[in-house]
């Protein structure tokens, strides 16, 4: 078997905002045989998407290929003219984007965009293209294949759009498919359907593919070989089985280790029941839109939720997008007043909105948001970001405040020298630590963590989780930990609440999560989390009816 793709000594340079030129890909060699799927795996900034895009002879604005060859079926994409590249794109090499929701033009129907490749390259008459598209929709097990093309992108779900993006790539019968994190933006239950569709299409057509992902477990299901990247260089290349079971390189080992979080020793349930509740939520309902005659808002995002969090414990809230978990945090913190029910903090019922709560109540409950980028003021240095709550809650000023800032940075394991920097001068993990330190500055009793590790790379996220655990032991904090990622919750929480469509469907101790879930939805959700096992997807058997109900939302 020959190689359909050969990347030889590829180097790509990028121009930074300050005008400096940095090498982001530093001489990479990768080959893909016919009918083989090769995964590029690595954290953000490792250059995996940049490499994948060079297969189409494309670099993002500001980037430039400085040397090397990218041979697709023997022809060098680097040396080609732009017109020749346009000829290859869509016909020989096709691209499936990370976020199909963003990659579909909102002003055109789906069908128009799916058949666009055949129109651009004049592959077949429009009628044939449409028929072929409908066949592809069917092959990708999309609902209503005959009519789904007439809809606009905003009228179908995220999982469906992702499969439609695959149809868009397949219409030109490409020899090589480039998948750029195609399931990262999806919920786990949806991800399974999309992965299955991709896998069967690739197998049917015996296509070659490059699959870019940061998720080792997903890649293990679909790739024949894995290329581990870091900092624009190849760290290790091996068969999938070998990478998963006998990794050689230190970085690969680190990736695999981060995948198996240390399970938390469960708290003694009897001890927990005896401890005072720091937070009690009773029959909480909240939503958006105008209030109806029954004094409930027109769209209820949270329905009659009740739970209790004991002091010094961690409670996980898990669920997929739209399950109401973020709304729950907003209501508890007073950002969104509830329509009914109560929130009791340390035995006292809290006012519905922030303006009705005392400063002391606000101080004791802090919230940390998912995206440190948007939560931290980009124009203030770290010391000002941390100093502000110190002055606001504790009246600390001057030298004492500086000393406190140093102490906080030390608490989140950051060097004190960082305090003069702006958030934009920090890495993603450092920013999230500052974000956490900002909450700690208030000396809270309870921290609401809203998906705080979701935007981070696996290794960085594991370090943040470890930090949270240490802080809890040092300071006796309580956490309410919201996440869609079950393994993070597993690593940090004592109890788990499963949310589905605004309702709490089940509550259980974390260590019983895998074995003892009783509600069918919890079972579906938990079994949908990809495992680091190459046969996991093939062996997975799920309740099809429930799956359809969840996926068809």
């Amino acid at each position, binding site marked *: 078997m020959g190689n359909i793709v050969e990347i030889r000594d590829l180097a790509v340079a990028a121009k930074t905002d300050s005008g400096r030129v940095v090498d982001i890909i530093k001489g990479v060699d990768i080959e893909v045989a016919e009918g083989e799927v090769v995964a590029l795996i690595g954290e953000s900034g490792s250059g995996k998407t940049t490499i994948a895009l060079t297969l189409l002879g*494309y670099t993002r604005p500001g980037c430039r290929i400085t040397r090397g060859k990218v041979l697709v079926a023997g022809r060098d994409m680097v040396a080609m003219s732009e017109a020749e590249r346009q*000829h290859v*794109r869509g016909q020989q090499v096709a691209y499936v984007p990370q976020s199909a929701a963003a990659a579909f033009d909102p002003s055109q129907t789906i069908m128009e965009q799916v058949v*666009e490749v055949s129109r*651009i390259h004049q592959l077949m008459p429009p009628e044939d293209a449409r028929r072929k598209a409908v066949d592809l929709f069917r092959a990708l097990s999309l609902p209503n294949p005959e009519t789904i093309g007439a809809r606009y992108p905003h009228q179908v779900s995220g999982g469906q759009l992702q499969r439609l993006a695959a149809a868009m790539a397949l219409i030109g019968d490409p020899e090589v498919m480039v998948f750029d994190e195609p399931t990262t933006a999806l919920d786990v239950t949806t991800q399974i359907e999309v992965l299955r569709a991709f896998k069967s299409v690739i197998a049917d057509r015996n296509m070659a593919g490059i699959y870019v992902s940061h998720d080792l477990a997903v890649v293990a299901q679909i790739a024949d070989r894995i290329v581990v990247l870091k900092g624009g260089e190849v760290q290790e290349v091996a068969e999938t089985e070998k990478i998963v079971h006998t990794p050689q390189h230190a970085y690969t080992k680190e990736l695999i280790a981060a995948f198996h979080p240390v399970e938390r020793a469960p708290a003694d349930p009897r001890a927990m029941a005896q401890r005072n509740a720091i937070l009690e939520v009773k029959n909480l309902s909240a939503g958006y839109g105008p209030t109806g005659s029954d004094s409930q808002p027109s769209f209820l995002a949270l329905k009659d939720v009740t739970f209790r969090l004991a002091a010094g414990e961690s409670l996980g809230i898990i669920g997929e997008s739209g399950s109401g978990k973020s709304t729950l945090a907003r209501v508890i913190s007073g950002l969104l007043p509830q329509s009914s029910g109560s929130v009791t903090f340390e035995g006292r019922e809290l006012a519905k909105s922030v303006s009705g709560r005392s400063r002391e109540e606000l101080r004791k409950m802090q919230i940390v948001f998912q995206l440190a980028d948007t939560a931290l003021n980009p124009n203030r240095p770290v010391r000002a970001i941390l100093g502000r709550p110190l002055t606001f809650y504790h009246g600390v000023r001057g030298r004492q405040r500086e000393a406190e800032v140093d102490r906080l940075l030390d608490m989140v394991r950051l060097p004190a020298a960082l305090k003069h920097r702006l958030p934009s001068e920090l890495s993603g993990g450092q920013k999230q630590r500052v974000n956490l330190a900002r909450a700690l500055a208030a000396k809270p009793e309870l921290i609401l963590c809203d998906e705080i590790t979701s935007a981070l790379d696996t290794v960085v996220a594991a370090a943040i989780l470890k930090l949270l655990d240490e802080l809890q032991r040092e300071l006796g904090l309580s956490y309410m930990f919201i996440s869609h990622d079950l393994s993070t919750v597993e690593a940090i929480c004592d109890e788990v609440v499963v949310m589905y469509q605004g309702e709490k469907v089940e509550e259980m101790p974390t260590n019983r999560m895998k074995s003892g879930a009783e509600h069918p939805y919890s079972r579906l959700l938990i079994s949908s989390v990809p495992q680091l096992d190459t046969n996991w997807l093939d062996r997975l058997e799920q309740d099809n009816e429930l799956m359809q109900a969840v996926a068809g939302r």
Partner: protein
Amino acid sequence: MNSMIAGLIIRRVGIMLVSLVIVAFAVFAATELLPGDVAQILLGQSATPEAVAGLRKAMHLDQPAILRFGHWLGGLVTGDFGRSYANNRDVADLISGRLVNSLKLGAVTTLFSVPLSLFLGVTAAMFRGSFYDRLVSVFTVTVISVPEFMVATLAVLIFAVYLGWLPALSFANEVHGLGELLRVYAMPVITLSFVVSAQMIRMTRAAVIDTINTPYVEMALLKGATRRRMVMRHALPNALGPIANAMALSLSYLLGGVIIVETIFNYPGVAKLMVDAVATRDLPLIQTCAMLFCLSYLLLILIADVVAIASNPRLRQ
């Protein structure tokens, strides 16, 4: 979809009427605040107090302001815009001829400047960072910063005085044939296009660049689309909403804001009429002109919103 747009237009027309009433009140209140007494100005310095009082009574100026407002509003609704204080002619008569002139000038300028701005804006965005793009940017910034009286005066100096190709004054009423029409309109249209195009070019360029940076336009490129197709099929349709709004804003200037151009070329339009009316304290005329400008502005914004909604399937729902 058509019924949906029709419903939207009906709703918007309702809101327009409300806005017009509010503006009518504001305009009336503002003219009330103008210093000086109309009767006194009309009769001159030497008038006896009795004569002034008599005229005030005859013009109903002795009635409370709110009553006169109601009377005027009632007149507006029934199409009676009142009589000019200055020369006792119907305001409707005074305005109608001038309005036609202004609309003609505005229409010719629109026909000329909108396609030009669209073309320059889109091509500048398409070749962002190129020499051509920089040339267009320098040109628009220059045009924005040079005041229009300067452009107009220079145009008169060059084309009318030195070269003698075009008439210095534009009498729109004495036009016979296309050649003459072009000659008469050339200079005012060029001057006005300079003023309104600069903003439209910049906004078009910015809106198109915004959409060029979206993943779906990148996706089109990765499907093998040419740059031209990428911009025309994917970037431009999604930028239409903001472009239409920027254009409505610029074009609204063509009715009320062209006083300088009308003065320099002695063009008989409504803007000049209104300024003259301010000088003579001709309140009914001022009020009617103000309402007219407001109405034209609201209509343009309505058109822009309909364009924005028609081009966005998410808003069409």
